[in-house]
C-alpha cells in the first residue's frame, strides 16, 4: 500500500472545481506614523521601548536595565567590546545560562509590534528563545506598517529558519490570568535606533 498515491488520488477525485485566488496586493498601508504606532503597540503587548540616537546610547542603556554581572551575548559587532559575541557553532544547549541576548531586527511591523529575525540575525536559532531576556535593535527605517509590507520585503528570503517575534513569551492558560515569561524570554526590549545606517558609529 502506498499512502501517498492513495491520498493524492482521493484528493484529486474529491476536490471541487477550480476557484481563483483573490488579489491580496490591494492590502496596502502607507502610513507615515510607523515609528510611533510601533512604540504604542509594542508597549501595549508588554514590551519595553527605548529610542536611541546611536550605538553608544544602546551600549550604555544595557547595563542600566539588565544584570550585567550575568551572561550577556550579542551578534552585533558594534557591541562586541562590552559583550560576548555569539558563537554560531557552539552546541545550542550551552546558551541555557544566558541572561540577555542582544540582536538586530531585519524588519519590524508597526501594526503588531513584531520584529522579523531570519536565523542569521539570531546567531543561532535557539538564542531569542532560550535567553531570560531579549533585546532587539531596530533601525527606525526598517519599520513597516503591516505584515503585507513585511512579506513583500522578505520575499523568498535566504534563511533556513526565520521568525516574527512580537513581545515577551506569555501564557494565560491558568484562569486567563496573563503571565509574562512562559517558556521563552521573560521580557523583551527594543532599542529603536534613530540614526540612518550609513552614519558612522561615533556620529
Amino acid at each position, binding site marked *: 500500500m502506498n499512502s501517498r498515491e492513495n491520498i493524492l488520488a482521493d484528493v484529486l477525485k*474529491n476536490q471541487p472545481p477550480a476557484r481563483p485566488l483573490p488579489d491580496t496586493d*490591494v492590502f496596502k498601508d502607507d502610513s507615515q506614523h510607523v515609528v510611533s504606532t510601533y512604540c504604542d503597540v509594542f508597549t501595549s503587548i508588554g514590551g519595553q521601548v527605548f529610542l536611541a540616537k546611536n550605538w553608544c546610547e544602546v551600549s550604555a542603556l544595557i547595563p542600566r536595565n539588565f544584570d550585567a554581572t550575568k551572561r550577556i551575548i550579542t551578534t552585533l559587532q558594534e557591541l562586541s567590546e562590552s559583550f560576548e559575541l555569539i558563537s554560531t557553532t557552539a552546541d545550542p544547549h550551552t546558551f541555557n545560562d544566558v541572561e540577555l541576548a542582544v540582536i538586530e531586527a531585519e524588519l519590524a511591523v508597526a501594526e503588531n509590534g513584531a520584529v522579523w529575525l531570519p536565523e542569521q540575525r539570531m546567531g543561532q536559532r535557539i538564542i531569542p528563545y532560550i535567553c531570560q531576556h531579549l533585546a532587539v535593535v531596530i533601525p527606525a527605517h526598517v519599520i513597516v506598517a503591516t505584515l503585507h509590507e513585511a512579506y513583500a520585503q522578505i520575499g523568498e528570503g535566504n534563511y533556513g529558519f526565520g521568525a516574527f*517575534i512580537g513581545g515577551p513569551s506569555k*501564557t494565560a492558560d491558568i484562569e*486567563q490570568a496573563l503571565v509574562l515569561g512562559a517558556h*521563552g524570554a521573560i521580557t523583551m526590549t527594543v532599542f529603536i535606533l534613530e540614526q540612518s545606517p550609513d552614519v558612522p558609529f561615533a556620529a
Partner: protein
Amino acid sequence: MEKITKDHAALAEAFIQNEEHVDWHDGALWWIRQKRDIASKKIPEWEALREAASQIKNNVLSNLHDYLLQFEANATRNGIKVHWAADAEEHNAIVYSILKEKDIRQLVKSKSMLTEECHLNEYLIERGVDVINSDLGEYIQQLDNEPPSHIVLPCIHKRKEEIGALFHEHLGTEKGVSDPTLLTRVARKHLRNVFVTRRAALTGVNFAVAETGEYVVCTNEGNADMGAHLSDVQIASMGLEKIVPQKKHLAVFLRLLARSATGQPITIYSSHFKRPREGQEMHLILVDYGRSRQLGRPAFRDSLKCIRCGACMNTCPVYRKSGGLSYHNTISGPIGAILAPNLDMKKHADLPFASTLCGSCSNVCPVKINIHDQLYEWRQVIVREGYAANTKVFGMKAMAWTLSSPTSYARMGKAGRWVLNNIPFAVNNKLNPWFKQREMPDGRKGSFDEWYAKNNDQTEEADEH
C-alpha cells in the same frame, strides 16, 4: 478513552452541576470574544481580510492535489523529509519509526490538535516512549490525564485551585498554592529541564507554504521553538488542509489568526521552518485522516478551511455553558461538531445537535465558514442515516414542520408561550436536556409578528415627526 457512551447532553449535565463554575467559564470565554471584537475593529479592512482568507482557502481546496505536490517538492529540496499518512495509525507508526531509528525514547511535543486526534501520546507510551506536552495548558491536561477542552485554551474549564492541587501532587509545590504566576514559574523551570534533555521534538503546523516548502508554527509560550531548536530530530505533523499557496498569503492569515483567537495583534512567535539546522534531521508528516473524504462532501468541505483560532467556541452559547469536554472529541465546539461526524457519524451523531443554530460562530469565523448551516445539514444527514437519538428526531421533526410553514410557526410560537406561561414544568423537565439547571424565561406576551403588526403603525407615525 475510546468508549464514549454518554452524549453531549449527558456530559454537559455533569459540567453544569456547579453553577458558579459554569458562570465563570461562560464569562471568561465571552471576555475573550470581546477582546476579539476590539482587535478586529482596529483593522478597517477586517471584513476584506476575512473575505480574502476565505477565497484563498477556497482556492487551496480546489487545487489541493497540485499544491500538495508543489509543497512536497519544495520541502524535499529544502532538506525536509516528507512522509504521508492515510490515518492516525499510520501517522503514529511513522513518528515511532523515526524515533526508533535513532533509539530515542523521550519526546517533547508542542501544541498539536492533530496528534491529539491521533492519540499519539498513548501510542508512544505503550511502546515505551515518554511524551511530554510542553504547552502549559496541555501540560496541565496531561498531568490530569484529560484531553484539551479548547483548541487554544486547553484547560480553560479548570479553576486555578484545581491546577494548584495538580502541581502539588505531581510537581511538589506547596499545598494550597494557586497563584497563576507562581504556578507558571514552576512549570517553566520544570519544562526547561525537559527541553534541554530531549533529543526529539514534535510540533504542529499552522500553515505550510506550497511556493517555498516552508511551514509556520504559531505559539505564545515559545515552547515549540525551545523544543525544536534544541533537538537532533524535529518532527512536524500537519493535516493536508494547512497548505497556503504563496508566502505573501501568510500576511492575511497571521493578521486574522491571533486577533480572532485572543484579541492579540499577532501570536508572540510565528516561526518559519524551511531547512533543518546543520546536523539536524527535519521530518514532516502530511496526514489525511478523513480530510480527503470531507473534501468530497460538498456540504461540509468548507470545514477544512478552519485555521483553528477557537473564536467559534468562545462565542458559542452552548460551548460556554457546557464546556469543551462534553463534546467528547479533540476539536470541540461548533467546528468540532461539523468535523467529528465525518470521522465517525455514529459516535458523534449528537454533536450537530449541541447548538442553538444562532449563527454567531459563522459571524466571527475568520475564514467565513458557514458553520451553523453545516450543523443544520449534518442533522439532516444523521437523521437520514438513522443515527439520531429518539428525542432529537422528534424535536427536529417538530422543528422542521414548524419552520416549514409560516402558519404552524405562528401557532407553535403561541403554543410555546402558552406552555411557558401556564405549565412551565412541561419544558423544564428531564425530557428537555436544554433546560436542566436553568430557569425558563417568562413567556412574552406576543410574537414578533404580533409585535410588529402592533408597532408598525406607531413606527410610521413616529417617522413623520
